[in-house]
């Protein structure tokens, strides 16, 4: 992966030129600490039509008060990405309208992903006091002839006379620990302020102190519903860096497992959507079918939810005898049961009324927010990594990238059902043709990657999951960055929630299907 470094002054003009040249999808915005070379940011851009990719980077040697220009007016998603970089590295983005911390408490001392961060308990003890209310939107602007600017604007986010409610962090419908602060007018949502970080475990920092095989354990716990796909991405990235070819048998097994995982995740999404809308029976039906997938996983991998199955160079264990038959039986069973689920929940008139036209995200907005996965495809954006940059066996199997046009909640649910059907279709093509051979390649216990930057991405259950590794030739990575699938979805909620009702928040949240540990990492 080659990166072009651009000068700080030209960042906005260069990026604007690229944006106008069709690079409309900001795939990743990675904060970096290059030590003496300074702090910086890597932009990974992609053309949503031609799938051409560009890597740019910018850095500043200032460590005390580093500042870089914002790009959040060109790509909406940059707003949250830049807040994340500010949170981790303390880089201020001038021109950004809301420069607050994204994940950590606002009374947190220091910037944890900097290489000189002091993680001692004395500086940041476990605080049992509530977070001090920080309701100020800060923004910074460049002054003449100065590197860093004074605070130009401070504005209260919620006003005193607004009816503000907190949904979360402990709330049944946020699917984990996400917190929404909503200003309401009656039932209608006027303003929305999303707080993440309640499950921020600092995985990216932890990765920097682990060896490559040890990294694998973390990916499963990011988005536990696409555990397999996440791990696939990391393995792929490391294998690419090592120049390791994995055997066809392992490729087949990985692809099948990825698709099974997709079915598992989509079933869970459908059933949770049903539960959030109050249809508990449909929830249980979905879980009943999901158990069958878990049985299949368990037989080969030994794990139910988290499988720890992919390893560098292949997979952990070979498939068992007769496993193929079970998978085939399951495919037939699932196609039958998904019809039942449709009758019970999806085709219900109440569901249709609750979901149609609710939470509409247009194609342009989806691209600008980088909302990939079913959300993007429901809006008509062909963003499937399996088609864009085929990996594993996806270049060879026949499957359709289903697209919907309305981009509303109902389309997002239909997308899931279509994807389950496509996943079954893919599995059926592969399951009978698993070639004989080794299921893994022998690797050394300590792996050293060559110096350089590597990235790989897969189609996770709810969007594009990307891995970026910068290696300085050690047995530990210098920097690991995971592209969260959920953060763009959360970001897009800012847009689509305005004017909705509280009940719609639940519908939209359920159909966007974010997983919080994946967002917070």
């Amino acid at each position, binding site marked *: 992966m080659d990166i072009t470094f651009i000068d700080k002054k030209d960042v906005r003009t260069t990026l604007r030129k690229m944006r106008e040249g069709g690079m409309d999808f900001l795939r990743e915005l990675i904060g970096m600490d290059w030590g003496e070379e300074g702090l910086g940011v890597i932009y990974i851009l992609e053309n949503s039509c031609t799938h051409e990719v560009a890597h740019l980077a910018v850095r500043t040697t200032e460590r005390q008060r580093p500042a870089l220009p914002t790009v959040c007016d060109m790509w909406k998603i940059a707003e949250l990405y830049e807040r994340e970089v500010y949170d981790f590295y303390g880089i201020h983005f001038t021109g950004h309208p809301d420069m607050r911390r994204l994940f950590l408490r606002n009374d947190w001392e220091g910037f944890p992903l900097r290489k000189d961060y002091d993680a001692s308990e004395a500086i940041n003890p476990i605080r049992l006091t509530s977070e001090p209310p920080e309701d100020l939107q800060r923004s910074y602007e460049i002054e003449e002839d100065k590197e860093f600017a004074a605070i130009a604007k401070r504005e209260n986010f919620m006003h005193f006379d607004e*009816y503000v*409610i907190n949904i979360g962090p402990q*709330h*049944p*419908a946020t699917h984990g620990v996400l917190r929404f602060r909503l200003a*309401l007018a009656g*039932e209608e949502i006027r303003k929305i302020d999303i707080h993440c970080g309640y499950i921020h475990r600092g995985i990216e920092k932890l990765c920097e102190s682990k060896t490559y095989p040890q990294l694998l354990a973390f990916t499963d716990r990011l988005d536990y519903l696409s555990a397999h796909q996440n791990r696939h991405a990391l393995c792929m990235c490391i294998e690419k860096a090592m120049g390791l070819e994995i055997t066809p048998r392992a490729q087949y097994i990985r692809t099948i497992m990825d698709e099974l995982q997709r079915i598992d995740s989509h079933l869970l999404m459908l059933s949770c959507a*049903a*539960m*959030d*809308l*109050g*249809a*508990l*029976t*449909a929830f*249980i*039906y979905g879980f*009943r079918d999901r158990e069958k997938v878990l049985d299949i996983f368990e037989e080969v991998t030994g794990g139910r939810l988290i499988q720890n199955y992919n390893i560098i160079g292949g997979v952990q264990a070979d498939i068992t005898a007769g496993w193929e038959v079970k998978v085939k039986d399951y495919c037939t069973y699932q196609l039958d049961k998904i019809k039942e689920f449709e009758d*019970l*929940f999806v085709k*219900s008139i*109440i*569901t249709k*009324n*609750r979901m149609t036209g609710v939470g509409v995200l247009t194609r342009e907005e989806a691209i600008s927010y980088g909302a990939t996965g079913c959300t993007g495809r429901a809006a008509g954006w062909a963003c499937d990594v399996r088609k864009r940059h085929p990996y594993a066996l996806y270049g060879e199997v026949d499957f359709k990238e289903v697209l919907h046009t309305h981009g509303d909640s109902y389309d997002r649910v239909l997308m899931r059902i279509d994807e389950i059907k496509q996943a079954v279709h893919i599995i059926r093509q592969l399951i009978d043709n698993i070639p004989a051979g080794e299921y893994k390649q022998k690797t050394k216990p300590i792996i050293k990657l060559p110096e350089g930057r590597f990235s790989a991405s897969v189609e996770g259950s709810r969007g594009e999951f990307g891995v970026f590794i910068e290696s300085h030739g050690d047995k530990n990575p210098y920097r690991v960055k995971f592209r969260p699938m959920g953060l763009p979805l959360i970001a897009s909620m800012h847009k689509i929630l305005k004017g909705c*009702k*509280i*009940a*719609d*928040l*639940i519908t939209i949240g359920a159909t966007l299907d974010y997983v919080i540990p994946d967002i917070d990492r």
Partner: protein
Amino acid sequence: MDFSTITTAIDNLLRTYMPEQAVILAECLLIALCLVLAYVLFAIVMIFMERKVCAAFQCRVGPMRVGYWGLLQVFADVFKMLIKEIISIKRSDHILYSLAPYIVVMSSVLTFSCLPFARGLQALDFNIGVFFLMAASSFGVLGILLAGWSSNNKFSMIGAMRSGGQMISYELSVGLCMLTMVVLGGTMQISAIVESQLDGWFIFKGHIPACIAFVIYLIAGNAETNRAPFDLPEAESELTAGYHTEYSGMHFGFFYVAEFMNVFIVSAIASTLFLGGWAPLYIPGLNAVNAVMGYIPGIVWMLGKTFFVIWLLMWIRWTFPRLRIDQVLVLEWQYLVPIGLVNLLLMTICVVMGWTF
């Protein structure tokens, strides 16, 4: 069998030993005790039934380990609930906060006392019975509003407001349906309504308008009891627990019990007004069948019909997703109320023209 013989006998017995005033007092206490006991008994049955029916719909088995077939499960819950700490909230309106659950229970007990379980087995029966029933059932919403208001919790507040909007709206449809049946029966006295169904239940006698009224009543009744698909006031996934978010221990227990008992009451009223209450099935012309049906005691008929309707409501509850607040109100004001009004007119025409059976 006429239960009034038993009550008269007890009355006479008491009168021989006590002065008039004391008799009335004693009888009032006795009736109150019986009512509360019956109320609690039915609540326990209802909760157990709900769990088992829900489990059956969801491919589960429900409570199994506490007692044989889980029969003692509800008792365990009651014991637990009784000793649970009752939390008092800072900056809440303490009096209203602790009053609210009692208002809700009181309203439902009062409504419960109007139900005719068999001939003569009815606590309250007078010439404007239906009217009283509606009045008693509709002040439950007051308790819910107070609970939401006094809790000093924004979720509770939204829940209570939703509940106010919803229950008061649906009261209208319930009222219209009851009125339709009152037109058919020609009386507001509940016992007289049941008596006049001895030769055919109202749902058969009133044919089309009665069937329409029955369906509307079931929908509106479901909404009145705040149950799915109309469970917005306590919408679990939206408002955590709605108006009773801040209640713990037995105070929460009261809300919980009242909710289940309201379902029972709604079903019992449905079976009284539409399915003949304790009146056995009567098919004109089939005397042998009618005679056999007549042997089954009235209380069995009444409870059988009631639990059938409860089962219908549970079926609905465990099938459909929840509506949104605007959809709930649109359904009521744009569909159910106009249909109900037209239906009332239709029924009146039918009765005036003599087009009933």
